[in-house]
């Protein structure tokens, strides 16, 4: 279908360089015509897992990594609040409230995941 638009054999240096690093995409002077997110395709290849960096991550490591991110949000929020109190000229009000909202949202998703895990554990030990 791409030959209809005559872009099949055109060489784009920047595009082909960028594409060589992506294992799943066509190489050389052929342009990738897909605008879909690779995560939408079924199944997972080792190359894709390596690219996303989630291949060999255990649940424990993923959870700890996510908790680090949540903690960073909390630290950002408290830094913004502190700056608001000590030096109100240096920061906008909406930056503070947005940092607080982000911290709240990330903590909420953590709480949801943890309560699901605990729920799964309860379901398991109540199996009879």
């Amino acid at each position, binding site marked *: 279908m*791409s030959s209809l*638009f005559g*872009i099949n054999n055109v060489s*784009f240096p*920047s*595009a082909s360089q*960028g*594409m060589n690093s992506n294992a799943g*995409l066509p190489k050389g002077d052929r*342009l*990738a*015509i*897909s*605008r879909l*997110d690779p995560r939408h395709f079924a199944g997972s290849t080792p190359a894709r897992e390596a690219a996303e960096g989630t291949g060999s991550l255990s649940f424990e490591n993923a959870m700890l990594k996510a908790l680090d991110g949540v903690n960073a949000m909390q630290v950002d929020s408290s830094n913004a609040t502190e700056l608001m109190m000590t030096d109100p000229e240096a920061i*906008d009000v*909406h*930056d503070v409230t*947005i940092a607080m*909202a*982000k911290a709240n*949202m*990330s903590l*909420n*998703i953590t709480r*949801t995941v943890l309560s699901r895990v605990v729920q799964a554990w309860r379901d398991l030990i109540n199996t009879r």
Partner: protein
Amino acid sequence: MGMFTSINIAATGMTAERLRQDVIADNIANQSTTRTTEGGPFRRSRVVLRPRTDTPYFRLPFLPDQWDNGAGEGVRVKEIQKDMAAELRLVYDPTHPDAIKTGPREGYVEYPNVNPVTEMVDLIAASRAYEANAAIANGAKAMFMKALEIGR
């Protein structure tokens, strides 16, 4: 496509509208200033905005992924520009220390080209745009909370 993309974009818009408000406040405060360091009366300033994404937008039916700008990254202030085009306001006041001494406009004082009506309309526009960005942030948070309720 992260969790906070729309909130981050809304934050850029809110920061830009805050700056517009600051510039309008400066214009209003200086609407009678006849003397500046660079000489002449005060000239009104205006904010020039541009998108945060630097790569151009290609209107092709099919694009390689790395050329696809996606949803964009919000707004950025390009510059605060002085409005040299609008006419200065002339008021006849020969006793004013900044009155023009010679020439056909002798005795007139040049006042800034700040029009309070324009500035107030701009102020309303800026505060409404700020509200719209805040609504985006709230909507994004409401969507996120709805997503967390799935399967509860």
